[in-house]
Every structure is written in structure tokens, then in C-alpha cells.
């Protein structure tokens, strides 16, 4: 297999850059979609939902079973139709998982007024439970995602583009625009922003705080599910720990962008995509994680509140 440097000499450098930019955009789209979920929940609840990366994994698995079922003998849809139905179904079911998690694990602690730390630890543990339950129930063998959309490859100049790649990028952008609209133009969105400022005043204003939180989790988990489906279609091998590393990285991306800010999550996710693809195009791929984490940490060190975040200072 030709190394990237060999390709570099065969292609002209502009194509090389454009190709990598497209790869970065696609790769970053996954991070952005997952990071959006982290940032929504953090923005509203000040909670790092450490289980979110695993909700992404659950979404991927749900999409696998849903697609398998729809393609199977009982329903027997065509692959394209199966895809069309799988998308909303996956998102809905993944939202359900997220909301259930909130209901069972986080809400009781919130009701008790428990220290934030305890909720974070609970989140971390729930993530582990999801991973290992998956491993226990489905075994260690990896699952192969069925092909739903026929891969169409377009060659523009020296650059290859697949329809799937375009779909992922477009999906991320659409989700971002949708969430921006929700948060700035709808009453639910306003309530979400209000909760992040002052949790205690909200019920006094007649806003049902629990419902808003449920909406937050529906949105965050739903889009994580979408990311899971798209990821499964792009890299069709599923395994129980697929959410772990991606989840951590997406979370860091959200923080680098400025946690609590949707723009920040989006930018952070794509930034991470660019960093990783950039590193791998020059260095051996084993250095990818090392560089990614180091660069993200450096950014955080220089601007602790993240790129779009508002510095929070303690009143002395």
C-alpha cells in the first residue's frame, strides 16, 4: 500500500490538501456531532455526561439491529428505504436510552441536591456499565454493519469524494444549524439557556425544569445516535469500546471550543478532525492520539475557558 508520502509525490500538492481537508471535515463531523451532545448537557446541567461517548456506541449498535431487522425477512425493505427509516428510528431509540439514563441515574441525585461530583462519577460508571453490558450480552466478536447506501465515488480532478462522506458533513452542518435555531429562536431553547444561568430561578418562573432537561437529553442523545449510525456506515465494524476513545476526544474538543457553547462544540469537533488528519498525513498513525491530546491541552492551557467560552471567575 503506497505510503502517504508516495502519494504526495504522485499527486499535486493542492489535491493532497483538498483530499485531506475533506477527510478532516468528515472525521470532524463525527466529533462535532458527539461534542454537541456533551455541550448541550453541560450547558444546561453543568454536568459532564461521561456516558455520552457510550451513548454514541449504543446508537451505532441500535442502528445495526434496526437496519438488520428492516432488511430482514419480516419487513424486507430495500437498503435505501431501510436507511430512510433507520435514521429517525435510531435517533428516537438512542434518545430513549439517554432519557432513561437521566431518569434513573441523574435525576434522583439532582432531586436530592447532591454534589455535582457525585453525578459526574455516576455518569462515568454508567458509561462503563454500558460498555461492559454490551460486551457481556453480545460477546467480543465484532459486528459488521450492512451496506445500506451504495457507495458512489466521484473523482473531481485528483480528489476522490464519496456520497457517504458528503452526507456526513452535510448532516453535521444541518444539525448545527438546527440546534442554533432551537437554542436562539425557540422558547425551549431560551429555557435551556436560562437554566444554565440560574437553575433555581427557573421553576419559580413557571418553567418545568425536568421537561427542559429531558429535551436536552433527547437532542444530545438523538444526535449521538445519528453520529453512531453514520459512523457505522462509514467504518462498518462495531465493537463495544468504540465509543470510549472517540467520546473522550469529542469531549475534549467540546471543552476546547468552549463548553456550553454550541458553536464551540462544532468548531472544536472540526478542529480536532483537522488536527488528527493533519498529524496522520505527516507522521506515522500511532502518533495521532498523542499529538491530538497534546495540542488540545496546549489550547486549553492558553485559553482555559476554551475558544468560545466565557471565562468564569470566582467572586472574591
Amino acid at each position, binding site marked *: 500500500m503506497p505510503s502517504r508520502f508516495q502519494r504526495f509525490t504522485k499527486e499535486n500538492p493542492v489535491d493532497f490538501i483538498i483530499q485531506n481537508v475533506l477527510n478532516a471535515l468528515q472525521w470532524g463531523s463525527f466529533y462535532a456531532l458527539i461534542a454537541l451532545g456533551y455541550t448541550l448537557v453541560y450547558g444546561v446541567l453543568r454536568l459532564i455526561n461521561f456516558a455520552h461517548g457510550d451513548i454514541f456506541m449504543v446508537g451505532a449498535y441500535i442502528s445495526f439491529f434496526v437496519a438488520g431487522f428492516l432488511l430482514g425477512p419480516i419487513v424486507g425493505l430495500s437498503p435505501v428505504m431501510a436507511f430512510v427509516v433507520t435514521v429517525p428510528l435510531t435517533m428516537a431509540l438512542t434518545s430513549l436510552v439517554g432519557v432513561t439514563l437521566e431518569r434513573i441515574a441523574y435525576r*434522583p441525585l439532582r432531586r436530592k441536591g447532591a454534589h455535582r461530583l457525585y453525578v459526574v462519577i455516576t455518569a462515568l460508571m454508567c458509561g462503563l456499565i454500558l460498555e461492559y453490558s454490551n460486551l457481556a450480552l453480545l460477546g467480543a466478536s465484532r459486528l459488521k454493519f450492512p451496506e445500506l447506501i451504495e457507495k458512489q465515488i466521484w473523482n473531481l480532478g485528483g480528489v476522490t469524494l464519496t456520497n457517504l462522506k458528503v452526507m456526513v458533513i452535510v448532516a453535521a452542518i444541518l444539525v448545527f444549524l438546527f440546534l442554533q435555531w432551537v437554542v436562539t429562536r425557540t422558547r425551549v431553547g431560551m429555557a435551556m439557556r436560562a437554566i444554565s444561568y440560574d437553575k433555581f430561578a427557573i421553576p419559580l418562573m413557571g418553567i418545568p425544569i425536568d421537561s427542559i432537561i429531558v429535551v436536552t437529553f433527547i437532542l444530545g442523545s438523538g444526535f449521538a445516535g445519528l453520529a453512531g449510525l453514520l459512523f457505522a456506515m462509514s467504518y462498518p465494524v462495531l465493537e463495544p469500546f468504540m465509543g470510549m476513545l472517540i467520546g473522550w476526544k469529542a469531549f475534549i474538543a467540546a471543552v476546547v471550543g468552549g463548553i456550553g457553547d454550541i458553536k464551540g462544540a462544532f468548531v472544536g469537533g472540526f478542529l480536532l478532525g483537522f488536527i488528527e488528519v493533519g498529524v496522520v498525513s505527516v507522521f506515522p498513525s500511532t502518533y495521532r492520539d498523542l499529538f491530538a491530546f497534546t495540542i*488540545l491541552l496546549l489550547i*486549553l492551557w492558553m485559553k482555559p475557558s476554551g475558544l468560545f467560552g466565557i471565562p468564569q471567575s470566582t467572586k472574591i
Partner: protein
Amino acid sequence: MKKYSLNMLLIVFAIGLLFAAHFRIIDSYIQIVVMTIGINIMMSTSLNLVNGNMGEFTCGHAAFMCIGAYISSILSVFCFGTKFGAPLLPAASVVIVFPIILLIGGAVAALSSLLVSVPSFKTRDDYLAIISIAVNYMIISAIENMDFVGGSRGFQGMKDTVWAMIDIFDGPWMLFWVINFTVFTVWVIRRFISSTYGKGVNAICQDEVAAEIMSVNTNKIKIINFMVAAGLAGCAGGLYAHIIGYVNPQSFNILKSTEAMVMVYLGGMGSLSGAIISAVIFTGLLEVLRSQAIVDGLLSPITFMFPDWEPSAGVIKWVMIPLLLVIVMQFRPEGIMGNRELGDVFPKLKKFYRFK
């Protein structure tokens, strides 16, 4: 005389253990369990310094264990092993050099804690969590890229040091060292934290602004606290490496860090005796759940309904332990001991010990 009862009891217990191990009264499996308890005590009490006493939220403690494990293993092989050429030191010196090697591993781990402690000056708790996780991943990733220590395939050869010790005297050396270092860890932590100097750590936790204005050099104390915690974890790593005889970067990933966290939060943040008790319980639980029979028994209602499902103990363990901590968080979030020590809960015990 009564005041030294606990100390004497511990010494008798330790000698008894060594005796039993030497004369094969207890088999090597039990020895390994005991040693694991010791290492877990070291990990949980050292993490407790940072996450409990200082109230920070770090999630990457295994990184320091990793550094200690690798540094001490490399030194070990240089001094007494054959992997990098002839051994540098005579085999007879191993009894004195081995603890020094472990301490050097700890010292390097302590230095590396600067990666996490310096950012902690400017950041709030959530951010420090990220930084510590990132550092954990970075260190593992860095080692995986270092081929001269085996990269992701792992590193071995330090067992030669253990053989060298056995050549001198055929006894349970690793058990001996684990006992010593565990006692050392608890001793150092206890003395540090109970001094007025160490109480500066608690002051930072309870009100950092007040600590700063009341003459506590908060940055320096944070650095020192992290260093002590990381250094002791590094020693634990070195011991772990020499017991198993093989290290691999993935043994020190976020799962190992989570183990340490479970012990700390189960025991109670800031409670030394809590951390020790929970380390013992946790290790015990892990061993119990290792038994396929017990796991099968626990899950029998479910397997009855789904007879095709064969849960593996190694996997179910990692469902039950997080579940345990979730339940603890729901019903007793302050952990077993809260932030109190055993002497506070059972005042009569104070008659029997005096830790100076």
C-alpha cells in the same frame, strides 16, 4: 503499652503472612491476592490525597503507576537483567538496589505529575478532569510509540531481578517488598496530612481563596501534594511490574484509573482509613467476582430466562463494580467513612494506637 497494640498487631500479622508464604502454608494465588491488596491500598490512598484531601477531580492516576512501572522495569533490566546487555550491578546488591529502583520510579512519576498539577493552578475541577484523562492517554500513547521498551507489545525482563533476590534467599521477596512499601505509603501519607503543613491541603480544598490569603502558598502545596500522590503511585507501579514480570501500556489506561477512583469514592473522600478499607473490600470483590461459579450463581435468575447466554466472569465484574459505585452514589455518596477516620467513628480504638 496498650497504645502500641495496633502497631504490634500489624507487625505480628506481617510476619505471620511472610512465614505462611515462605513455608507454602498459603499458596501463590493467595499471595498474589495479598500483594494486590497492598498495591491497591497504595493506589487508593495516594489518589485520595489529590481527589479526597485536596478535593480535585483527577481521572488519570494510572498514568503515574505506568511511569513508575516502566522506569523501574527498565532500570531493573539494566541493573540485573540481560535484555539490554550484561547486568550492570552484581546480583548480590539486589536487596539494597531494588527498593532504590522502585523509589526512582516513584520519583520520575512524581516529576511527571507536574503535567497535571501546573494546569490545576488556573483551572476548575471539570477541566482538571479532562487534563488528567488526556495526560493518561498521552503517556500510554507515548510509550506505545517507544519501540525500545516494546511499544504496545509490552516490556518484560524485570523478573530477573526477582530471581536474583531468590538466589540470595529463597523466600517470598515480592510479598516482603509489597508489605514494606504499603506500610511506607500509609505512614508517609498519614504523617504528611496530619501535620499543620499537610493541613494546608485541606485548607485549599475547603476554601482556596482563604488559604491563599492566610499565607498558604497554594501553588507550591498543590505541586507537593500531587508529587507525593504520584510518587507513591509510581512505587505501586514498580511493584506491580515486578510481581507480574510483564508490563503493557494498556494495563494503565482509563480503566485502571477508574479502579483507583472507585476505591477512593467508595471509601470516602479524604479518609485515609476509608481508602484502606475500600481497597481491601474492592480487591476482595474483584476476586470473588473472578469466580465463574459465583457470577453464574448471582446471575442465575437471568440466565434461567435466557439459557443461551453465558456471561463471562471477567466481563460481568466490570458491570457490577460500576453498578456498586452508582448505588453508593445514590444512597451513601460520602462513602463508607465519609471524611472521618476510623478513630473518629470508634473512639475506643484510639486507646489502642498512637500514630505519631
